[in-house]
């Protein structure tokens, strides 16, 4: 498994998490280059099929990052994301995709440090899990 570098797709909401990622950048806080970001207006925009598409296309891990509960720019879009996440985790298990390969977290615009932490943790976990085994 040495030398394996996972590919991770992150869906970041425009108002909190994307800002949080930018603020990590402004503070020049380094984190693993494994993350590739898709900006969405709200974490509630993340259709489960995007996540499946990401796994299909070669992602080893997927993250959905949204505003903290109560802070959603669109009132409760992040809670919709949370509900879908719960269901999707079970579905992924049935596909043989380890639960840890999908992660949902809340990152506010000011939480650059937390963003770095979450991305680093996720990358480390994916390194441990190794490449996603695809049966097709």
């Amino acid at each position, binding site marked *: 498994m040495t030398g394996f570098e996972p*590919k991770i*797709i992150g869906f970041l909401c425009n108002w909190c998490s*994307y*800002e949080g*990622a*930018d603020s*990590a*950048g*402004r503070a*020049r*806080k*380094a*984190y693993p*280059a494994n993350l*590739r*970001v*898709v*900006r*969405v*207006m*709200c974490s*509630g*925009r*993340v*259709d*489960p*099929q*995007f996540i499946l*598409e*990401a796994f299909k*296309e*070669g*992602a080893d891990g997927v993250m959905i990052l949204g505003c903290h509960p109560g802070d959603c*720019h*669109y*009132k*409760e*879009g992040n809670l*919709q994301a949370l509900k*879908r996440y719960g269901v999707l985790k079970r579905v992924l298990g049935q596909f043989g995709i380890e639960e840890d390969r999908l992660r949902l977290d809340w990152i506010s615009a000011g939480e650059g440090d937390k963003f770095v932490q979450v991305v680093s943790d996720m990358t480390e976990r994916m390194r441990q899990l190794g490449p996603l085994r695809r049966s097709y």
Partner: protein
Amino acid sequence: MHGTQQPAAWGLFCLTGVVSVAERIGVYVCECGPNIKDAMDIDEVVRFAQGLDHVVLTKAFGLLCAVEGQELIAKDILEHNLTRVVIAACSPKEHEKTFRQCLEKAGLNPFLLQIANIREQCAWVVKDKALATDKAKATIHAAVRRVVHHEPLEIKEIECQPHVLVVGAGMAGISAALTLAQKNRKVYLVEKLPCLGGKVARYEDVFPSLECASCILDPILDEVLHNEYIEILTWSEVQEVLGFYGNFLVKVNKKARFVDTETCIGCGACVETCPVKVANEYNEGLDERKAIYIPYAGALPNVAVIDQEHCLRWQGEACNACQEACPFGAIIYEETDQVRQLRVGAIVLATGFDLFDPARASQYGYGKIDNVYTSLEFERLVNSTGPTEGKIQLRNGQVPEKIALVHCVGSRTSQFHEHCSVVCCMYLIKFAHQVNGKLPGASITGFYSDLCLPGKEAQGFFNKISREANIALMHMKHPDSIEMTKEDEKTVIRFTDIQGQSQAVIPDMVVLAPAMEGARDAETVAKLFDISQGKGGFFAEESTTLAPVSTAMEGIFIAGCAQGPKDIQSSVAQGQAAAGRILSRLVPGEKLALEPVSAEVNKDFCCGCKLCVSLCAYKAITYDDVKNNVAVNKVLCRGCGVCAAACPSGAIQASHFTDGELCEEIRGLLRQG
């Protein structure tokens, strides 16, 4: 500009757009001085981008956001017939708008642009040059694949109604109404009580200036009453609200007053002769009023009103004492409620607050011990138009010598309200000043756990009054470390001080400062206007920091204590702010510009499951039960895309964030780099 193409993602399985015409994409890589240039191999990035499908032009440039950079892009668009542009530079949060304008100037739809964030999320966070180069390439690849599927979006506009409905004629509502009327806006000022001025009209003095409330209020009420642009609907309540920002249709029930407002001069002859007596809510129940009444001396408009619930005529008795007593023939028993239909573009809710009922916390003895009063009761006791004409006296007529003022009743406690009610420390100090003026020998004891005296006025006001009046302050351990009991006809206050010691004091009178909370009918109002209630029962603002007077419902604004506890100046500021927000966007003769990024429904694919209807936080989606499909109201839609993610048939798409665009982005990120 670009060829006809199947909207990228209509349909269940069609996640890839069909591009029928070769697009001509220009990719620009910003070096951002050394910021991006030094972090990656720019030449490699440019070479890579040049090889991507549809890319006809790739350039690296020192600083694209500079005028020279923008001119370069605009010139290239025209010279090379570019149909789409990708800019690999800083975060879209920095310059997406700048570059959109740049496209627009060159005649290209501004939405045919995609920004690849290779600075904040690449150059600045990836220390290894090779990895940064790879990440930048992947990000650009995704942007190119995505931008191919971008649809040109138009900023739509709708006709709108410039008139405004203001609900609640307290300080905030009046301030909003006057500010709007100043710009010749028609304002419907709806007030459920028979008179204007809200709670402030029933105060004697106000802090920190200690001006008399009516001295402040009367001139502006006079302005409201005589303003040709303000139509006052007192004794009226909103019944129904339809529509959306720019075009609301509101039904207001103007309750029968049974007194002709034009002929009544408020002489009070009718009041004297009325045989019915009921508790007077305008004096907090401290005295009685008649079934026909003027709320208090000086109430404006100075017109009587019949309380139908208690008037003998509506109990089946043939009393017409008031009609006989009226020298002007102003009493009309036949009057009926009238429903008015109002067309307005925006709504300001300034429906105020109520006090926490201290009887809910038994430790304060309120309702059981006669000598315990709320602050609003005390306001009426010291008021010259109140039940005692301003004399501070107990229910038994005795004049108190020792007065206790209790802070934080029901606030700053996990049991009731967590919030601080902002004004209590200030008005209790004002009470001390009033007691000192009216009862010079009386001793005053304040029971507090923390004093809240923020801003440029409060501490000075507190210091000044503390020097003048005979006030002792008892520092309690917690806001609720206090209990009142009645022992041998005496009111005993026991409290735990900051050191944890138990102490007791025996006052003659106790004045409580109960928490301010959302008005008793706030829940009904919230439902009626489809907005939400937040902490403390107050209406929830769109954003606590950046949008404190707007709500999640476009066009519905909140101001004053309906939004949260605050003092008069803040209420006035919010009323004016809400009016300002309306004046700046709802301009007569101008159309209302709508958010271009919104949800779109392809009715052919909609199966009418209504999942989206229940998910939309803005009630922007409506179901047509005849056609069995849904439609999105573009005025209400904010473009979050929650509906698009949920739609099982792919019939709803979030424009600029379509399934097709996002899936292409995902592929771009993963297939390369």
